[in-house]
């Protein structure tokens, strides 16, 4: 009898091992590294883009997804830079968070020029949200209140201090002519929903986050969106949300979903991947995925995108120095 129990235990472990191995082994097929655990935004990027690339025949074989969580994406970044720098069959999920962390030197000395940014094909627009009974009716009401007395207005967001949610507020205040940005009150809580809860509960006056985080609360009428940080108004049901730009605050801050590739791959391989990504961007399948996940169109592929990322990184670097997150 005892032998059979042992067998069960072994079987259970082997099963567990098998599942793990199934996720992480790579074959000849191309690989997409999601630098986070299953379920998050980077995992979504790899899984949906990888699947669509194969479905629309932009690549020949299915793309294997590997989850490599750690260091807020830093572990995967280091891995790619130091061990896979010339792997042409490798793409890695990235987002605004990747750029923010690179700008703030959060990847242990790694820099943005150690990989090549491939492109972004969708974005979660940044928004500023207040509770439904808030006295603030427009973005400028809110920013004026901060200018009058920064200690009276606290912002909540789902990222840490110095994270992208925090920086969006600082960018908007900077454009509105508020210089003393270290006085701005910001608390980083565990995710956007938590930040909204704090704002509805009246503990903070406004929430800064991405539109996908607020959709449920918006529809239930618990919150109002003061501004979306996009170039133009959002399509469809969000069409009545004013942009920050049209309120005179020229800030475009979106949480883009995209990819980077290793630095030392050939230009042919880079072009092959950017073509494949452009095809995904144009596909109906991707349009469906974007609608289902609250993403707005935001397509920048190839050299164009590299320039955009460099610009974002330098602005974040400047702001981060001002608030003291980096030296």
């Amino acid at each position, binding site marked *: *009898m*005892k032998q059979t*129990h*042992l067998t*069960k*235990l*072994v079987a*259970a*472990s082997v099963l*567990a*091992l098998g*599942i*793990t191995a*199934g996720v*992480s082994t790579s074959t000849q097929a191309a690989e997409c590294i999601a630098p986070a*655990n*299953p*379920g998050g935004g980077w*995992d*979504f990027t790899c899984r949906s883009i990888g699947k669509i690339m194969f479905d629309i025949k932009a690549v020949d074989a299915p793309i294997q997804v590997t*989850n*490599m*969580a*750690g*260091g*807020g994406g830093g*572990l995967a970044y*280091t891995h790619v830079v130091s061990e896979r720098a010339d792997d042409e069959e490798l793409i890695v999920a990235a987002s605004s968070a990747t750029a923010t962390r690179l700008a*703030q030197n*959060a990847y*242990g000395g790694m820099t943005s020029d150690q990989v090549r940014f491939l492109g972004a094909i969708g974005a979660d627009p940044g928004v500023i949200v207040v509770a439904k009974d808030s006295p603030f009716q427009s973005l400028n009401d809110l920013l004026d209140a901060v200018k009058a007395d920064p*200690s009276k207005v*606290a912002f909540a967001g789902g990222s*840490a*201090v*110095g*994270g992208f949610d925090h920086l969006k507020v600082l960018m908007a205040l900077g454009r509105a002519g508020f210089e003393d940005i270290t006085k701005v*009150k*910001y*608390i*980083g*809580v*565990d*995710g956007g*929903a*938590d930040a909204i*809860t*704090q704002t*509805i*509960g*009246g*503990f903070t006056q406004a929430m800064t986050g991405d539109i*996908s985080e607020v*959709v*449920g*609360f918006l529809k239930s009428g618990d919150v109002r969106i003061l501004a979306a940080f996009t170039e133009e108004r959002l399509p469809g049901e969000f069409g009545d949300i004013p942009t920050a730009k049209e309120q005179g605050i020229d800030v475009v801050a979106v949480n883009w979903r995209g990819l980077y590739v290793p630095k030392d791959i050939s230009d042919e391989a880079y072009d092959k991947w950017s073509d494949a990504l452009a095809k995904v961007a144009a596909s109906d399948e991707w349009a469906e995925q974007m609608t*289902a*996940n*609250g993403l707005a169109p935001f397509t920048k592929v190839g050299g164009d995108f590299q320039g955009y990322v460099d610009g974002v990184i330098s602005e974040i670097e400047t702001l981060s120095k001002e608030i003291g*997150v980096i030296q």
Partner: protein
Amino acid sequence: MDTFSLLAQGFAVALTPTTLALAIAGCIIGTIVGALPGLGPSNGVAILIPLAFSLGLDATEALILMTSVYYGAMYGGRISSILLNIPGDEPALMTTLDGYPMAKAGRASDALVLSGFASFVGAMLATIGLMMLAPILAKVAYLFGPAEYFGLYLLAFSTLGGIASDNQRKAALAACIGLGIAMIGLDNSTGMGRFTGGNLHLLDGVDFLVAIVGLFAVSEVFVFIESHGKSSAIGVKLESITIPIKDIGRTFGTMLRSSFIGFIAGILPGAGASLGSFLAYVAEKAYVRDNSRFGTGDARGIAAPEAGNNAAAGGALVPMLTLGVPGSGTTAVLLALLMTLNITPGPLLFTERPDVVWGLIAALLIANVVLLILNVPMVRIFVKVLSVPPWILLPGVCMVSFVGIYSLSGSYFDLVLMILFGLLGYFLRKLNVPTVPIILGILLGNNMEDSLRRAMVISGGDWKYLFQSGISIGFWIAAVTGFLAPVFLRKIIKKPQAHVDTTPPEST
């Protein structure tokens, strides 16, 4: 809104052969996952997520499978707590306090049946509570700001000393070690790394699962090696299964009170099942007139944490479903699953996706009955997994611990860390320092620190902000009372030896 007609629709979803089979499979897997030390509900669910996707399950089916595993793990955790004195998962920690002594006294089956029944009562009441109150209770989260959370965590820490050890100084020391370890990693309030030594692996902090497995499972193996296999940590025999009707009858009030406390603890975002079982145990100990037998195998000491942690598991689903704020580690994993399935939890989930919500609730009710059957008359099957001799089981535990931790992070670094925690646990046992407060420190330390610092940011550094609501004042009073009471009470009653860390092989 007619709850019962919605529930009937839910049962129509849940009683299809596929979903029913998934619920039963989930219950079995969950109980095993819960029973095996180191494989807690959150790694159990996390490991199974890729499986659910590869099976091509739809949203409702995947959710039913995962929540059955989740509920099952809550039941299963008690089995190894009672038989091995190693909590099968972190919420089952409190069950070791009385469960293991009772089993050692030759009443292992009574302890298992009693705790199984308590789990059933807790989970059943919580599921009914979830069904009836979720839309209303969701608003409680709006009453909890940083100051209130800080009060809540303070309460948890200041009452630690009274439960985990007979020596409050050692318990406080252990809590400080835990809090210290919690400080490693990214500082949420500034976004800077602390105490990481530039190591990227440490930037995410020390995963409490790594610490738990190290401090409990791995140190158990070290203790076993030291004893050269002469004695066994699993010195418990399981006699035939009978229903201890007297104990069940005697503890029924305990179960009802503990379910209520557990459910409330579960609803509070971030608190979760561990706090539920902990508060249920402490409250019960404080409530009953004669608590001198607590810690030595008191039936109420088994019923309270089990009803509490199962009720908290149900309660934790409330903020997860209605606000998208996970109430525990495992619900955080479930939340990730929901998002991947294109379901956005939030205030509107109950009206927009009634098929998902009510199908889930009906499945939970069914899973609960299945789990009662699996865990009371058929508990031997699971016990047999654990009743192998220690020289087979401990290497097995070790292997599953390594596999479980590796499958979560895919990082050898966590394995090394786990072994270091095993060594730490071994030496602390030698020094008779309890390890429970360390775990709670790691688990709650960051939340507590963040709450305090958020409160200070909002108030501009004014500490009076911490006492500005009735809720937070209540927590402060309870915390001070909870910390001081055991010091005075200990002079009056000799506190019984807690059993969490006191199974030195030399003495058995």
